[in-house]
Every structure is written in structure tokens, then in C-alpha cells.
């Protein structure tokens, strides 16, 4: 059985303050910070043994046993074209299991994902020209500017998972 690094379900409920905040799970892809809203994350775990699945594109790393549920694990760096396709996962990685209405899918990341609370106002809509320029940009919710001037690219998992072509499966 997999060891849970952190379980969002046990996280604190966002306090209803004057300033609305958003809790993100933040991870790195090709050196940049990406975030997913915590309510779209089912759990973060050390990636268990991945069974390679024939007949799937290279960025699908295979399937894992997540507490009895079998889910697919994908490498977003490859999917977004940030690195060449077909790279094996490192011996030690983490899986962010994200949830949509229809299914759960695992995002394999190399470093420990971390939770972060930011002001909702900090998320700016992605610039228009970014929206249709590439794979990654189509799944953006916006870009969060932090006080230290660093940015987090906030992904909208519902867009990512709704798009059936994300997997571009045969048949």
C-alpha cells in the first residue's frame, strides 16, 4: 500500500475572512511552479509501482494501484512538450491524484508537492495570446503573482480531464 505524503481531505477548511484565499498544491514542472486547487486534488503520494500500459502514448507512464483504485499516471512535462517524449520516470517520484467528475488521474512529479495558500485576487486570468498557443495554455486557469514576484501557473484540472484528447488514445 502506498504511503500518503499528505491528504488534502484532512486539511483545514479555508476561513471565511474578508479576503478570500485559495489553497493550492504546488509542484514543479521543468523548473516552473504549477498549482492545482486543493479541492481538485484527491491525495498526494509517493508513486507506487507503475505498470506500463501498452497501446498508450508515451506520456502515459502506466497505471498504479491507489488504495485499490487503478488509475493512470501521466507525465505533464511530456504532455506539455516541455521535455522530449518517452523519458522513464525516476526511481523515486510523487503522484498528485487529481479528481474530475468522471475519473481520477495521477500527475507524476519529481519533487515533493507542497500546499500553499494564496489570495484569490492574486490569480490573474492568463493573457489571451497564451490561451491558444499550446497544450499547456489550454488548461490554464490563470497565473498567480506572489508577493516575492515569483509566479505560479494555476492549472484547471477540470479542463485538463474533460478534454478526452488529453490522452489521444487509439480507438
Amino acid at each position, binding site marked *: *500500500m502506498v504511503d500518503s505524503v499528505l491528504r488534502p481531505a484532512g486539511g483545514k477548511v479555508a476561513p471565511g475572512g474578508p479576503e478570500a484565499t485559495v489553497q493550492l498544491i504546488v509542484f514543479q514542472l521543468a523548473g516552473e511552479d504549477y498549482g492545482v486547487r486543493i479541492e481538485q486534488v484527491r491525495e498526494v503520494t509517493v508513486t*507506487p*509501482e507503475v*505498470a*506500463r*500500459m*501498452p*497501446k*498508450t502514448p508515451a506520456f*502515459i507512464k502506466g*497505471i*498504479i*494501484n491507489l488504495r*485499490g*483504485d*487503478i*488509475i*493512470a499516471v501521466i507525465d505533464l512535462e511530456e504532455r506539455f512538450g516541455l521535455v522530449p517524449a518517452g523519458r522513464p520516470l525516476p526511481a523515486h517520484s510523487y503522484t498528485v491524484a487529481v479528481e474530475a467528475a*468522471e*475519473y*481520477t*488521474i495521477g500527475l507524476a512529479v519529481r519533487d515533493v508537492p507542497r500546499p500553499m495558500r494564496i489570495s484569490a485576487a492574486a490569480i490573474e486570468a492568463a493573457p489571451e495570446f497564451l490561451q491558444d498557443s499550446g497544450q499547456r495554455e489550454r488548461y490554464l486557469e490563470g497565473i498567480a503573482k506572489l508577493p516575492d514576484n515569483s509566479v505560479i501557473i494555476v492549472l484547471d484540472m477540470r479542463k485538463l480531464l474533460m478534454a*478526452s484528447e*488529453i*490522452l489521444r*488514445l*487509439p*480507438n
Partner: protein
Amino acid sequence: MNAREQEYRELFMAEALEYYDGMGRHLSVLERSPTDVPALNELFRLMHNLKSNARAMGHAAIGEVAHSLETIFGLIREQQRAFAGALVPVVFTGLDELGTMIRAVGASQPLPDAAVLLENLARVARGEEPVQPAAAVPTAPDTPSEEDTRKLELSDLVYIQVRKLDKLLNLVGELVIDRDRLLTLAEEIGHPALQATARHLFRISDDLQYSVMDVRLVGVGVLLNKFPRVVRDVAAAEGKEAELTLSGQDVQIDRNVLQMITDGLLHLVRNGVSHGLETPDQREAAGKPRVGQLRLSALTERDDVLIEVADDGPGIDTEAVRRKAVERGLTTAALAAGLDEQAVWAFLFEPGFSTAAQVTDISGRGVGLDVVKRALDSLGGQLRISSVRGQGTSFTLVLPTSIAVKGALLVELDGRPYAVPLLHTDTVLALRPEEFSVAAGLLLAHVQGQAVPVVPLRDLLHAEGSEPLPTADKTQLHGPQQVLVVNYNNRRLGLLVDQFIRQQSIVIKPLSKPLDTIDLFGGVTLLGSGQVCLVLDVPALTRLFVARRA
């Protein structure tokens, strides 16, 4: 009383008490608003159901009372009588009396005499005043004696969603797999107390598994009993004369298995009448009785349930099917010529074949039979066909009793395990390269006097796009080759694998979205170690091979 009668009685009791409760509720509504149409409709419906059930079970007295009450509700609905005056207490008394009678059935006691009640019901139905004794009842509804007889009933049966049973069965399946693993470990470690505990766990989980499976079993009769009507209707529409014989209604099968083959069986039976039987005149000319015989029977064979649909019609015209299969592009003329009749008949269940409407006129078979095959494939079942020209045809569905736990052979390819359901495995072979032959770009193994095409499983799993598979090359084979011969739709196919691991029971989990579109995999299973193992779908592999062979 045997177990089945007991079960029927319990079912009758559960339904009767439910109807009784429901009618009590609706009657209270009617008392407040005597013209409430939905309440009247429900009362009429429930009373009608109760009447039918009671008569079917031989409880004529309950049927009589229910019939009289149904009549009265009908009259009120048609506004010929009003739910008012003396009629009200008589109806309430009637319902109370029904409750008493139902309870008497449950307690195996004689039913109370209902003559006075029936007389009163008949009188109010005619719009007359009831005779005295019944009228006395509502005047003293709160007397202690009345209070004693009025009981609150809870049914002895619970209704449960099949979905919940599915979950339970899956969990038990996984428990059983872990149990096997534990038993093996206990033997390896050799600790006596641990071994004893593991064996105890083995027995308990075995009982648990069978209990859960038992809960899901229903008699095949619940489906078969629907067919006399189907046969009558189709025969009438087609100008045929057919007699249907049912047998084996008591054979037990998993409810979901039965559900999944319902459509397929319907097609087979309809086909059996409309194409499997000749017209009365044709039959007479062929020296057969005018009335065609159709047999629908179920029986148990080891862990499988066989359901057979047999007719005494003209049999399958094998040559017509062979020609049609070539015309339909399902095979080539050269290949078709060499196929035995079993392999030819298998075409009847191909989707491409079934749409050929005119085939039914020539061969007497064909429309929609691919639904049968699809249902069997998803269940891991098999189809057996036998047919003799002029004497008849029989189709036998070989179904698993239960769907959760399946026997499978684990094979290894590129360091990963794959499971192949035993239902589709034929034999395993270790062959030296020189024992293979190559013909038309295909690698062939010779199994029991039959040439079986062999393909590396690796090639099938990694075939991209729609390119043909690489041409077979014997020189690529080095050392002994492990061949798993699978069988689907009477076609054998050899798969080259790295090695055979072992045979074991597996619980198949469906692949979740979005991977469920890859049809080569029937699902996944978790091995005792927690390792994920893909389950190969032999029908899909066979289809892929046929479509892509070099």
C-alpha cells in the same frame, strides 16, 4: 415444503405485506380526500397485484377478498360509487381482514372465514347497505381486543441494490486472493500457529465467499419463464406453429450474468422461431410434425451454467454461410474453403455477417446474433453450436455461475505479468524453433493435427496504427518458445510469451476512464503482492490479429 416453495412463500409474504402497508397508507389518504385519483389508482394497482400473487400461490380466499376490493376501487374510480357512508368501514374491515389472512399464511395457519366480509363487499359494490356484523366493527375500533390483533409488521426480507452486492463480492474476491497469499507465506515460514490460523482463515473466507455468491444467485427460471409469451408472439407473426419446452428453471446463476445475456437469449429464441423453424407446410413436406419444437433448457456443468436453445428445424446451411462470409469480406475464398463447419458457423456471430438480411433467407440464420457474442465475450463465456441438416440446430451458452472470481493463467512478457482468463486458454506448449512452420507470412504451430497461427504477444500489444504485423521469420526464434494457445469463437491462436508464471484466481477490476477505451485489456487485477496486472482480452487480441495479420 421444499426449499424453493419456502423461498416462493417468503417472497409472496414480503410482497403481500408491502402491498398491505401501501394500501393502508393510500386508504388513509382516500379517507381525507375521497376522490384522490392517484391514491385510487395505486389502491387498484396494489390490490390487483395482491390478487394475482395470491391466486398464483393458491391462496384463493385472499384472491377472492382482493378481487372484491379491487372491484370496489374500480367502481369508485369510475365514480359509480363514492368512498363514503357505509362503504368506508366495510373497505377498512376488508383491508384489515386481508392483513389477518396474509399473516395466517405466514404462520402456516388456516385462513379465517371471509364469507360475511365477502357478502358485505358484494353488497356495497351493488350500492346496498352491508349486513350488520361488519357495521359493528367501525363503531368499536379502539377496543382492547382490536388493539391486540393489530400488529406493526416489518418484512423478513430486505431489498438491496445489486451495486452494493457487487462491491461486497469484489471485496470478498480480494480477500480470497490475499488469503491464498497468506497461506503460501505461512507454509514458507513454517510456523505451526501461523499455519493453523491461516487454514482457519481459509475456511472462513471460503464460507464467506460462497455466502456472498449465494446471495446473488437467482433461478434461471425468472428469465426462461418470460419466453413462452415471446415464442407465441413471434410464431403468430411469422405464421409458424411452435411449441416451447422449458427445463432447468431451478438452475442458479448470478443475477448480473443473467441480466447480461437477456438480450442475446431473446435474439436466439426469436431466431429459433423465425428462422430455425420451417412453416407448417414445409415441415409436413419434409415428413416432420407441423408443430415445430423449441427447447430452452438450463443445466449446471462443473462451475458453469449452460443455457441451450434448440430447435428441430432445417439446420444450418454451412455452404451458404461460407459463401456469405466471403461476400461479406470476413474471410478470403481460399481461407474459407479450408475451414471446418464449426469455424464457418462462428461467422454467424460476427457483426459484419449479421447485418446481411438476405442471408437469413438462404441459411436460415443471422440477424443480430452478434449481441450474443458480445455478451458472452464480456462475461468470459463460450458458445457451442451443433447442427444437423434437416434435423435441427442447438446453440449452447456456456456461462460462469459467478462473475467476480475467475481462473486465469499468468504469463510474463518483458518482465511484466499479464493474466489470461482460463475460459479462453486452450493449451500451453514449449516448442523448438524447428517445430514451427511458416506459411503465407504466418508462423504456424501444429497442435493436435491442426495448424495454429502463432504471433508474438509483444507484436500484438505494440502494434501501432493499422500497419500489418511483421512477417513471420523463423530465424528470429532462438531456443525453446513458450506458446499459449487461446481459443475464441472456435478460432485458435498461439501467443508467444516469455514464460508462464502460474495459474490463479483473480478478481477483475474494470479499467477506469480514460483507459477503458483500450479494448485489448479486459481490466486489471491486483496480485497478492499488490502488483498491478493487466488482464488480456482474448476476443480483442484475436480480432486484432485477424485484422493485422501479415
